[in-house]
């Protein structure tokens, strides 16, 4: 099964992402074609899952981040259509304890935000990288993904 995935990956014309073999790679079935989703991380505990078929990255906070924040009670999201530069503050996640700024892990245009979080901020604790995603950014420069941390690199940041 793993060799099948590898060969599937090879037949796609991959953008020069420099995906290491150790990167977290998953496949999602979309109508009619397969897409490659790569997840990378920032030192600030954001994750971005980049779909190379659409050029869109889904931004979330990591499980480690939600755990240290505690119960999330408020999420401030960026405006749809806004253009953000890598490192710009695009929102915030607030627990009773503290506010934690969210920085854009990549540059691009905000296509979509997770409106469910307005009513259900607790999704961020229950499912930070799936149901609790924050926003989708159309990457201006997909090669920015390369500069982000791999799952292993991020784990080292958390452990240190």
């Amino acid at each position, binding site marked *: 099964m793993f060799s099948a995935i590898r060969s599937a990956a090879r037949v796609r014309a991959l953008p020069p992402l420099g995906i290491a073999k150790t990167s977290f790679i998953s496949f999602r079935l979309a109508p009619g074609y397969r897409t490659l989703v790569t997840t990378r991380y920032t030192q600030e505990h954001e994750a971005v899952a980049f779909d190379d078929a659409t050029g869109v990255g889904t931004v979330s906070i990591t499980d480690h981040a939600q755990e240290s924040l*505690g119960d999330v009670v408020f999420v401030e999201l960026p405006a749809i259509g806004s253009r953000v530069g890598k490192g710009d503050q695009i929102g915030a996640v*607030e627990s*009773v304890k503290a506010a934690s700024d969210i920085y854009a892990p990549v540059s691009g245009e905000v296509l979509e935000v997770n409106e469910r979080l307005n009513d259900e901020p607790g999704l961020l604790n229950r499912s930070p990288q799936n149901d609790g995603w924050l926003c989708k950014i159309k990457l201006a420069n997909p090669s920015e993904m390369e500069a982000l941390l791999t799952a292993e690199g991020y784990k080292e940041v958390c452990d240190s």
Partner: protein
Amino acid sequence: MVPFAGYAMPLSYGSVGQVASHNHVRTSAGLFDVGHMVQSNFRGVTAAAFLEWLTPSSLKSLSPYSSALSVILNENGGIIDDTVITKHSDDAFYVVTNAGRRDRDLAWFRQKLEEWNSGEQAKDGKVEHEVLEDWGLVALQGPQAAEYLQKSTSFDLAKLTFGKSAYVTIGGFTLHVARGGYTGEDGFEISIPPSQTVDVVQLLSQSPVQLAGLGARDSLRLEAGMCLYGNDLDEDTSPVEAGLSWVIGKDRKESGNFIGADSLRKHLKDGPPRRRVGLVVEGAPARQGAQIFAPSGKDMIGKVTSGIPSPTLNKNIAMGYVLSGWHKKGTEVEVDVRNKLRKAVVTPMPFIKPNYWRG
């Protein structure tokens, strides 16, 4: 665990989140370990007069086994610390001060005791100060606290009303119990000799009581409109600005001779330049340091000193200082959170209705 006043303290215990812990104290009972706070005894024939020199409280007229919230003032009338003073008799007082102010307070006490004891005021007797090092202090708080504690004692707790204290035998240990706390709920603060602390905590932390950490302590006290020293009070703030004029004894406002009296009287007479207010903020919670503006956003009129999304009210609450004139309830202001101005309304505190046992 987080560093706090030189101690490593838990924000929460186990898997109970801050909000769940907060709600548990509001609806049932929680036990806070506040053993980091500094417990002291002041004894001596002139102890009441000494403490009336250090604070603007009326302690001579306070009845025995009653507590008073008070402030220790510097020469300019600024707050060195806030404190709860319990009178046992005219010559014996039990005083609890903040851990974060330990060094400043103890040095101040030492210096002022020397002045006092070497002066004319102490001719009838000197004052001695004893710090209860390593003593335990726990706060059992919540609407079910009394019912729970009653199971371990034959003392009729219904007679121990808010602000009173007594030596109560709990599970075989005779302990100083003061009715009150820092949550806005009914509750007890229990002082425990070092060798008994673990046993007493075990006795007091059975179901339905949950251990509660610093996180819940902060959100509970803020909903109750209570100040946190270092956030909401400091040495550049007078008790009049802080909305704590009520701690000044009636008989002491005009003529009381205490440290900082002149500046305090000036604030009382002319009105303070700024005042502590409660705020309800729309949109995002405003935190410590957030700037408060007049509507239109041009003129800065103050700063937030504490702020949270309130777990009980589901609103963003805050306290802070605004220029006098902007302090009246219902006044609309704006607060800068992440470079965006958010509407806020000056709101009376406490934000929740306190639930004290007054008999």
